[in-house]
């Protein structure tokens, strides 16, 4: 059975994809985020707007499509998230 993902888990997944897949420094496209994030396009679009709005992601406007890059604030969020995930896992729990 696929474990239920909370909203904060989904945000962490999207941010970590934006961080890890940004090998060339040009940002990550929506297709990559969709594939790794495992969610619908409409839901991803809404989430990306929220993450850009809250400053966790940076939107890089290209010629045709937008690409996304994790911000410093996003990196801080991931660091804190993983520490609390570690804390929860110590007690045998999932965030």
């Amino acid at each position, binding site marked *: 059975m696929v*474990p*239920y993902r*909370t*909203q*904060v888990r989904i945000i962490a997944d999207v941010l970590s994809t934006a961080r890890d897949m940004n090998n060339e420094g040009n940002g990550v496209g929506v297709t990559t985020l969709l594939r790794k994030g495992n969610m619908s396009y409409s839901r991803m679009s809404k989430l990306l707007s929220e993450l850009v709005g809250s400053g966790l992601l940076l939107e890089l406007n290209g010629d045709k499509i937008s690409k996304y890059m994790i911000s410093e*604030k996003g990196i*801080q*969020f991931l660091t*804190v*998230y993983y*520490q*609390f995930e*570690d*804390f*929860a*896992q*110590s*007690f*045998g*729990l*999932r*965030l």
Partner: protein
Amino acid sequence: MTIIGDVLQFIGVFVSFSVAYVAFRGVRQTQSSSLLRLATAFVFLGFGFAVEGIVGLGQLIPALPFPTVAVVAGLVLETTGYFFLAFSHAIDVMISKRMTVALLMFPVITLSGAQLIDILSVLSFFFVLYGVVETASSYIRTRKPDTLLITAGLALLSVGIFIQWLSLLYLNVDVLSLMQIIMKETGLLILFTPVLRFAVGGTRLDGTI
């Protein structure tokens, strides 16, 4: 109960509120319901240990008689804490086979004790035992050393609660009271490990990102 035992209860208060503090910060940062249940569990445990410690020390002063209701209130708080601790896992497993087996075993053991304090001790034992099983099962999945440590801590806690229950049956054996509190406090100190890791890691716990 000895004075040492009563004083040791306050180690439990410190550990419980420390774990609750970190868990509540986690709730603020991540909105995690699992962490909320964990924090709630340790708040109840903290207040439970505090009431038991105060009642224990208060009994040393004849001018300050604590009624039985205070003793029961402390145990109710503690048992509620163990309930939340056990059910922190509920979102993952709901009513699993392990839970069914635990619940089926429960009436057999409660038949031996009719008093409320007996029942609360037995309930606490089952809740913590369930927590031990779930945490051990989580360790099997994740192979995380900290999870194994917490399993050991919860196991010691459950042994302590079991001895506490025995001490109610064998009132003349003083050593049981001291043993149960030492086992419980050692178990709780082990549960403090993840909090220490936070302190050493220097995680900012104030405000949200």
